[in-house]
């Protein structure tokens, strides 16, 4: 088991002929993902380098191939429209990799998303998600992943890889890894992923990597109090000065909102260890897994 993506996921790639889209389509296929269709307006009827059929619209692609998930690689000016098109085709899962989607566009997209309760959006500005050995809807280097029972949720790409590499080095594998993205407005948040992991019998423990900005970590902490599955957290930006945007559009402490202290406090109160160092995060995971094994 896993969450959101597995062997049965039939993926559609929006922006399949662009530089990023073309490269990552090859990478996703290389790790076993079923890529059934691509969409590039005006190139319908052709095929990509891997023989994936290309369509002009998402509706056409879904009707012809039965795609049940989409990944978006289109440039920022067109990303909002691409997301809306995927929602309208009633795809259950839409992943937007694009970084730099304008805020006012995203306000509208988020509002429309609420009209499609059966559609889940991951991102934008995210590395996507992977269930090792089954499917990858994203851009992460899949070779560093091992299959296992640690669920991973993160707001940052490279930080995720760092945690995964540390897990793999110690023989710990991942059930599913979700990069939820670094923007102020994203689809799935920590709490949504935690709920899915809680319901997944294969996931024995969850690692969440948060960062300064917003209050999603605090919201998640409230939910964690009700969870059976143990959670270990890491918070990035503990020493970042207020008012400075740390690369991610969403990583900023404004006024007294979004501070690392508030997040660490909320998580600690939910009995979640929040170690200062990366390798200590995995120490905690090992410790918790050992105590689970005893019971």
């Amino acid at each position, binding site marked *: 088991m896993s969450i959101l993506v597995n062997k049965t996921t039939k993926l559609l790639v929006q922006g399949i002929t662009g530089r990023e889209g073309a490269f990552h389509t090859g990478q996703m296929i290389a790790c076993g993902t079923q890529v059934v269709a691509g969409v590039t307006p005006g190139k319908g009827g052709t095929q990509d380098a891997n023989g994936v059929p290309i369509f002009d619209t998402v509706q056409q692609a879904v009707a012809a191939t039965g795609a049940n998930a989409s990944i978006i690689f289109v440039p920022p000016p067109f990303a909002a429209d691409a997301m809306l098109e995927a929602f309208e085709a009633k795809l259950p899962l839409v992943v937007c990799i694009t970084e730099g989607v*304008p805020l006012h566009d995203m306000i509208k997209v988020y509002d429309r998303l609420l009209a499609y309760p059966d559609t889940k959006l991951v991102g934008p500005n995210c590395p996507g998600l992977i269930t090792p050995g089954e499917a990858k809807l994203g851009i992460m280097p899949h070779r560093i992943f091992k299959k296992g029972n640690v669920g991973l949720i993160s707001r940052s790409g490279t930080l995720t890889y760092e945690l995964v590499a540390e897990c793999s080095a110690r023989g710990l594998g991942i059930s599913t890894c979700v990069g939820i993205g670094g923007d102020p407005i994203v689809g799935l948040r920590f709490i949504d992923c935690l709920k899915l992991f809680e319901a997944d019998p294969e996931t024995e423990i969850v690692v969440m990597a948060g960062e300064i900005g917003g209050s999603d970590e605090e919201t998640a902490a409230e939910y964690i109090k009700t969870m059976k599955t143990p959670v270990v957290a890491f918070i990035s930006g503990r020493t970042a000065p207020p008012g400075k945007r740390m690369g991610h559009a969403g990583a900023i402490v404004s006024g007294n909102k979004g501070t690392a202290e508030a997040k660490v406090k909320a998580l600690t109160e939910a009995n979640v260890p929040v170690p200062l160092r990366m390798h200590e995060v995995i120490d905690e995971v090992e410790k918790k897994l050992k105590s689970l094994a005893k019971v």
Partner: protein
Amino acid sequence: MKIHEYQGKLLMERFNIPTTKGRVADTPDDAKRIAQEIGAKVAVKAQVHVGGRGKAGGIKIANTSEEAYEGAKAILGMDIKGLKVKKVLVEEAIEIATEYYLGMLFDRDEKKIIIMASAAGGMEIEEVAEATPEKIRKIWVEPSVGLTDFQIRQLIFEGGFDKKYAKEATVLLKNLYKLLVECDADMAEINPLAITTDGRMVAADAKITIDENALFRHSDLAGWRESEDGHEIEEEAARRGLTFVHLGGNIGIIGNGAGLVMTSLDVVNREGGKPANFLDIGGGAKADVVKNAIEVVLMEDGLKGIMINIFGGITRCDEVAKGILEATKDMTNLTVPVVVRLSGTAEEEGREILSTSDKFHPAASMQEAAQKVVALAGLK
């Protein structure tokens, strides 16, 4: 992207929002000429991206154009909270009878635009919100509907505005919301929104920030882009297309991915160093980007060491290593220790390339890199 008050007022004029008449000057002579044109008492105001300029002496009232010249001379070049004043706004000095507050910004929790109005203008709105929250009327704009008339009435009547000005305030609110949406602003704040002694409603200040991600559809505004704090190294980094934040410490930090760089800052801090900067070379960086990154970091004063922390996904460690060698080949000002951590895609090739030079100190992990750079910098 923060824009200056004078730029905000230019935008407001474009959207028919009444503001104080004035123009920007970068020399005392210009200031004098503008004051002569206005032909009345003027205010000379420092244009810097930082609050509290009034207290710092950055605003002077001038009764004559001579005084405007003197005022501008005193303010231009002035240091306000570490920022040098390069421009002043010279505008009519208005006699204020009443001060209101009007603000529109993105509410991250609701994922909507929030609009706030209050009769308690002129002071810090955060302080009003803290002490007397009932004095602020808030509404949230439904994205699919837009700002409605009833919401405008709620803001004006329940926000405590004088009913005499309801009509002016209605038009102003509509125009400011139009500006917010059409200019892709994530904040537009007027504080104070003044009622003058001669009965006019005027935006006496203009605090507007534009969403950088939307600049592709605003070529006219893109030219206003400068470093948020007007910091010289940040401006140079921006010209070279790097995501760079000046922090002022002693250890230069270069990495790939915002989260990883932010974590690198945390680790260096914890080990006893003070990060000089935040620099994210992004995904898939090639040798020339790495070269630019090192050159920019070396512009920081008081540097005692550099830590390069790469976890290669799309980014290839051998490309980064080539960039490091290329950048430092003929560099004479590289006198501080450089610790390099390369993991992930093509890590072995990368380490191999770097081992051909004795200028660099390898590290196996982020933790080890931080400890090493702090020790080599003599900070521990």
